[in-house]
């Protein structure tokens, strides 16, 4: 038996993994002896650790200068074992609990104990996704926790930076096509000693970022939180003893693993679940894109989830697309993160939340795809563009399981992509600046199986979704809000509709150079889905802007201005109210800089719907129309609900007319519908001839090249000749 506390940490990690391999239990813990001995003490200690984390995070948020961290809470902290497994974590962006685990293990495996050395008071930082994070702006700091001479754990913290110094301003660097344009990398680097950040590291940050105050103060916030957690853990060890700590901290993780398996057996049904979504990336003709690959690309994201009888959940991405020269690739660390943050929301809502939950799952990430690139030079700056749609599918698959088991209150159509807007140039104060706007942290959620989705209140990547305060955002950018409103019909239709999104319209003000860039929004296809008859939300929006508008002139004369693009997709209210040069942009918004007097609008996403639209409650629908969540036109044409006006002009449901309308719509459905077998026979010819748009054909060819299983299933489904392939 290895004398664990004094053995080199690398040996301790290898030993821990060997024990897991041999026993199937974390660190070889086959019996939760301390829990059995004194369950109250066990639970109390874990609650204390969680309190240390929550308190450290709250304290640190006050140190940060970034509205992303202060307002929206883009931060998480956690306490780890010496081998780098999470024991307890705070609230916040829990995606990173396991990515930080990968970072610590990477340093251990790469001999950091010898060089650069791991000592009390050291600070290590990382934002390299191939070592362990999701994207460049997710910068993490960890500090070892020593008790005497013994390494007893790690304290870690992550903040999402609003500016990363990449080819385009902000953090989610949309234009990055390779790693070398993503921004400032810190690759598992010792950035401080004796509890203090190194001056040369801070200087590097100050000279390589557009807005270093965010990054540097976030670094200080993270170090403060790590020191806070470290001192709390040391005091706890003084109280309970070193041997007890070393044992109990690992039992917490094994209990977390067992709890996850038990939860799966309690809430789901074993079997295979399948779903898919798509993402359209359209960049042809856009300035700045190097001709490294196809400019326009359609991604398929199929997922097969298997729930085993032992409670283990396995997710398989076989059949998806290869990595590409764009910023949306993802590393296995990022994929882990997406899985972890989803599980913490949907299954680990009680009991111990830690790396044990992750250990009860498995991800199958095919080599060479965007989920597991076989080239470490690829960019991952906007991984979320594909991660969010993918984990939205995961939520729907889990929800099918909850529905089967009867836990209808947990069934949830899931998250959607959260289109990001970032900017840089000259600020309203006449200084260079750069930042990401995080009001996107409040999308519409998918519907539930028993109620409508949340309006402007949910994103998958931060369970404490918050759009921040308009006044604070305005302090940080040379744009003023002239409108922020609910987007009618933005929730997917269904018996229960998806949550609605909002859109913002800004006046560019007090600057002659503002670069605006957007990312993480799909073009030409919806990147979400509905469930049980619900429709997907309309998530392929274009950007509308007005250059050289006459807004100041209109304001001077007290004339009305447009506060939103309006409801006519072919002719916006901007064109009705303003004069100027009108822009309608599909795909990432990467254009020439804006200046004072220009107008720009950006829309967020609503969630998918649940159930048959013809079962929608007419009274709820009247309320939706009255409050701007739905247009009257959609109420009738989509939901089959007839609305009349009451004496004061407010919409009221006409129940009898609705019944008639629905009866007619149902009959129309049956009249229009054809047997699936007939449709398949008609489509087969088209499939065989590859009579598709070039991007669709390319998608099939790429999937077939990487996946024999995808090819086999495709050929079998369409009854194609053996050996059938698409070339591309």
């Amino acid at each position, binding site marked *: 038996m290895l004398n664990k506390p004094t053995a080199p940490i690398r040996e301790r990690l290898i030993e821990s993994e060997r024990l897991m391999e041999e026993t199937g239990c974390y660190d070889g813990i086959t019996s939760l002896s301390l829990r059995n001995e004194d369950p109250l003490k066990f639970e109390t200690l874990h609650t204390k650790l969680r309190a240390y984390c929550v308190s450290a995070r709250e304290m640190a948020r006050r140190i940060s200068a970034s509205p992303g961290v202060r307002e929206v809470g883009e931060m998480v902290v956690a306490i780890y074992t010496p081998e780098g497994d999470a024991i307890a974590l705070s609230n916040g962006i829990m995606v990173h609990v396991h990515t930080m685990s990968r970072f610590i293990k990477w340093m251990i495996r790469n001999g950091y104990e010898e060089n650069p050395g791991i000592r009390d008071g050291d600070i290590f930082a990382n934002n390299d996704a191939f070592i362990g994070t999701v994207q460049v702006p997710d910068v993490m700091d960890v500090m070892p926790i020593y008790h005497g001479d013994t390494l007893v754990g790690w304290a870690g913290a992550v903040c999402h930076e609003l500016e990363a110094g990449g080819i385009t301003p902000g953090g989610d660097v949309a234009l990055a096509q390779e790693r070398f344009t993503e921004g400032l990398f810190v690759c598992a680097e010792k950035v401080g000693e004796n509890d203090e950040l190194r001056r040369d590291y801070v200087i590097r940050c100050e000279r390589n970022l557009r807005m270093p105050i965010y990054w540097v103060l976030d670094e200080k916030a993270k170090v403060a939180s790590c020191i806070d957690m470290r001192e709390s853990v040391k005091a706890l060890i003084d109280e309970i003893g070193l041997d007890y700590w070393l044992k109990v901290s690992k039992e917490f993780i094994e209990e977390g693993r067992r709890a996850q398996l038990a939860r799966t057996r309690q809430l789901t049904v074993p079997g295979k679940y399948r779903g898919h979504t798509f993402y359209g990336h359209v960049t042809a003709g856009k300035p700045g894109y190097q001709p490294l690959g196809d400019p326009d690309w359609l991604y398929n994201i199929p997922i097969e989830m298997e729930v085993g009888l032992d409670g283990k959940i396995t997710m398989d991405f076989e059949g998806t697309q290869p990595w590409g020269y764009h910023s949306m690739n993802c590393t296995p660390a990022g994929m882990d993160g997406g899985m972890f943050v989803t599980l913490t929301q949907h299954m680990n809502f009680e009991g111990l939340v830690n790396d044990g939950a992750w250990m009860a799952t498995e991800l199958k990430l095919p080599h060479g795809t965007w989920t597991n690139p076989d080239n470490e030079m690829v960019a991952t700056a906007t991984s979320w563009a594909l991660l969010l749609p993918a984990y939205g599918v995961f939520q729907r698959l889990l929800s099918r399981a909850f529905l089967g088991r009867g836990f209808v209150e947990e069934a949830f159509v899931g998250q959607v992509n959260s289109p990001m807007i970032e900017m840089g140039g000259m600020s309203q104060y006449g200084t260079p600046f750069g930042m990401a706007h995080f009001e996107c942290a409040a999308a519409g959620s998918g519907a539930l199986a028993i109620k409508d989705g949340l309006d402007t209140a949910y994103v998958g990547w931060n369970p404490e979704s918050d759009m921040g305060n308009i006044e604070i955002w305005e302090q940080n950018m040379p744009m003023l809000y002239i409108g922020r409103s609910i987007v009618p019909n933005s929730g997917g239709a269904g018996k229960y509709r998806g949550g609605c999104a909002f859109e913002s319209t800004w006046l560019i003000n007090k600057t002659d150079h503002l670069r605006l860039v957007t990312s993480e929004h799909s073009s030409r296809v919806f990147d979400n889905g509905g469930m049980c008859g619900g429709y997907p939300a309309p998530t392929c929006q274009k950007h509308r802007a007005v250059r050289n508008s006459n807004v100041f002139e209109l304001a001077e004369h007290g004339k009305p201005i447009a506060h939103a693009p309006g409801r006519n997709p072919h002719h916006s209210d901007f064109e009705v109210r303003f004069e100027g040069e009108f822009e309608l942009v599909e795909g990432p918004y990467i254009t020439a800089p804006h200046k004072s007097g220009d107008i720009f609008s950006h829309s967020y996403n609503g969630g998918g719907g649940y159930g048959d639209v013809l079962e929608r409650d007419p009274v709820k629908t009247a309320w939706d129309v009255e409050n701007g969540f739905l247009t009257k036109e959609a109420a009738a044409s989509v939901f089959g609900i007839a609305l009349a006006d009451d004496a004061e002009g407010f919409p009221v449901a006409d129940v009898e007319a609705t019944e008639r309308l629905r009866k007619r719509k149902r009959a129309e459905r049956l009249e229009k519908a*054809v047997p699936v077998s007939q449709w398949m026979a008609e489509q087969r010819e088209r499939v065989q001839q590859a009579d598709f748009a070039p991007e669709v054909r390319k998608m099939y060819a790429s999937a077939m090249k990487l996946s024999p299983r995808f090819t086999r299933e495709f050929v079998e489904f369409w009854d194609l000749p053996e050996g059938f392939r698409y070339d591309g």
Partner: protein
Amino acid sequence: MTSYSKEVIADLVSGKLPWPQTRRIMSAYKDDDRFFKYIQVLQDRVGWSDPILLPVSDHLFICDSAEGRVTKCECGHSFGDYRRNWKLAASIIVRDTEEALREIYPNSDIPDPQWMEIREFICPECGTLHEVEAAAPGYPVVHDFEPDLEGFYREWLGRPLE
């Protein structure tokens, strides 16, 4: 152990349970006797007597029938053996033109029908819309769920199927 009456489960499933009570159920420890109460609630709802074994969508159930275990619509229409993809025995409306997509998305930017179509899978008897797929043209129809029915009843519920 947490437990709720069949009436409470019925209201929860139909979306009629008041939100404060629903919220409490969401926050509480889960009730281990949920499944069979849920099945009773659904059995009361449908107009046929074949025993429901597992719900697979809002109005679709795997049940034991004279023709074996089948996927059945709430209206009684059978889609055949539960191990086959019920969608292949359904009716379908495909929205693959701008005009057809506009009927569902009248005020929004819509997909390019060359890149994505909306497929509506409908019960050929009652016209209930059971599932919607948003997929690229030519994409195989998804088999959403293949439950391990035997294992579920035997090992998780402790009541092996006959």
